[in-house]
């Protein structure tokens, strides 16, 4: 395992930095704010006795919608031990909170609060297209996926959301808009496509929350083959 000063272009720093991206989206993401890892500037890794591996990173992230880039300092701890447990992340960024998306979020919220009717599939479609009115729900899917991707990440994975297979709006509860999402994740190292069902709530003041999550079997009509060595 790479330890000490890391080459920022090599995969250990890149994978750890991706985890920071997922974390930032769970904290600050919305239908009008999604972050992507832009650059790793520097990184350091060390073994933490009995606790796993800790990465210190200087990275830049880019807001997909405004295209502003922000510098962040972050720490990622991948817990050790037999069971795979989620990484712990701490991050501080320069300007993160100051991007103003309030008006757009309110407008979206009001539109779908009064008429809970959203139903959409294949965001994006096979050609990479997303209907402009649906883009906020693609963003919301990306943010909701980040909760799963954060939970599932290890030093041996690199996750991106491949697609929102479908999204359905459920009845509004406690002033939160609620949605059922079927999402496809792409894991780079295994090259697998992993299906997840999520129940998501969102409001401009409440942010994005994942209420339920369930991994779906890879292929409903496939049988699991016998293990081969």
């Amino acid at each position, binding site marked *: 395992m790479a330890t000490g000063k890391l080459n920022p272009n090599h995969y250990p720093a890149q994978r750890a930095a991706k985890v920071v991206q997922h974390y930032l989206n769970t904290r600050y993401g919305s239908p009008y704010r999604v972050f992507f890892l832009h650059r790793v500037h520097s990184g350091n890794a060390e073994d933490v006795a009995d606790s796993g591996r800790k990465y210190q990173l200087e990275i830049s992230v880019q807001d997909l919608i405004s295209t502003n880039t922000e510098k962040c300092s972050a720490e990622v701890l991948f817990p050790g031990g037999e069971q795979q447990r989620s990484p712990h992340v701490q991050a501080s960024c320069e300007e993160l909170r100051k991007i103003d998306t309030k008006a757009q979020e309110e407008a979206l919220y009001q539109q779908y609060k009064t008429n809970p009717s959203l139903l959409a599939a294949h965001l994006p479609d096979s050609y990479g297209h997303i209907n402009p009115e649906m883009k906020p729900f693609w963003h919301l899917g990306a943010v909701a996926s980040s909760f799963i991707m954060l939970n599932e990440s290890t030093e041996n994975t690199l996750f991106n959301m491949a697609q929102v297979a479908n999204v359905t709006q459920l009845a509004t509860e406690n002033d939160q808009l609620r949605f059922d999402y079927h999402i496809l994740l792409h894991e780079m190292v295994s090259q*697998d496509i992993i299906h997840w069902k999520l129940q998501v709530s969102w409001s401009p003041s409440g942010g994005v929350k994942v209420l339920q999550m369930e991994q779906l079997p*890879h292929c409903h009509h496939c*049988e699991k083959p016998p293990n081969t060595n």
Partner: protein
Amino acid sequence: MINSVGLGFVVLLSAMGAATIERAEYDYYRYHPMPEIFKWMLQIAEDHSDLVTIVNYGLSYEMRTISLLKIGLNTGEKKKAIWMDCGIHAREWIAPAFCQYFVKQILQSYQTDPKMQEMMKNMDFYVTPVLNVDGYIYSWKDNTTRLWRKNRSPGPSGCDCYGTDLNRNFDANWGTVGVSFNCCSNIYCGSKPVSEPEAQAVADFVGRRKDDFLCFLTIHSYGQLLLVPYGHPNFTASNYDELMKVGLAAADAIKKVHGKNYTVGTSPDILYPNSGSSRDWARMQGIPFTYTFELRDDGTFGFKLPENQIQPTCEEAYQGALHIITHAHDKTFSSAVATAAATLWTMLVAVGVTCATQM
């Protein structure tokens, strides 16, 4: 006197072939299903019959023809060669789009660029727009198949999943690292090295001509990377330093087009260890300049790169590929002789074009 007239006539004929106007415009900036790509190949070969021939060099598992476009001036002599394949992984649609763009671009460039004219004289370009034909067609079937990666051969008996990862199936440290022996895995390396007809087709065709090839470029997505051999962490290519130097210069050329960063390095360094890749196999055959291109994007859209990014992606990747190809060419064909030959050739082509316009 008679010799120069005869030479002028030969040049005139080839210039006329090159000056043929394209018929209905093909849209290089949309994704095309396989039948359209095959029709395009036929059209290109017809429109540029002086330079292009179609070579069928294998059959896929589902018995479809695997074809390439051989592009270069027919000098009647044995020539050095450049290999490019796209679409070894079905879902990476931007890759076949790039191969088609690349062909269009080199043919267009040939009309006016003395350097391209020189390269077409000295080398043949072998471009396979879609290597994994069955997989590509399957990824067009419906919304549930879009993200298919492997080929479509059935798994071993007892397995209910289809497909072998063709880029783990080549005979290059096969089955050692970065693979799965679970036939349902997307990195299943097959029952044995080159078990798959698609991989076999490449190995046969390139293997028979391995001493001719200067470059082997295999095009994938996504990630914005230029990968150099080898995928196995314990092996270093003998020309690693040169591969890195040329790769970094290619990445610079890419960045100059639209500002995109492409990272350069071995797979175990910048992505993950793997074995059985076509790039590693090609390098082991002795082909000096072998690279895997991972085109846009960085994970935002991933495999479903929006069509409005096809053009910029192709433009930048072309500059990267061209840099590598030009380096490989110039290293082989001494530059002093090449300059003189290029000047003479330009003159002759110009004479041919002038005669054509006067007819």
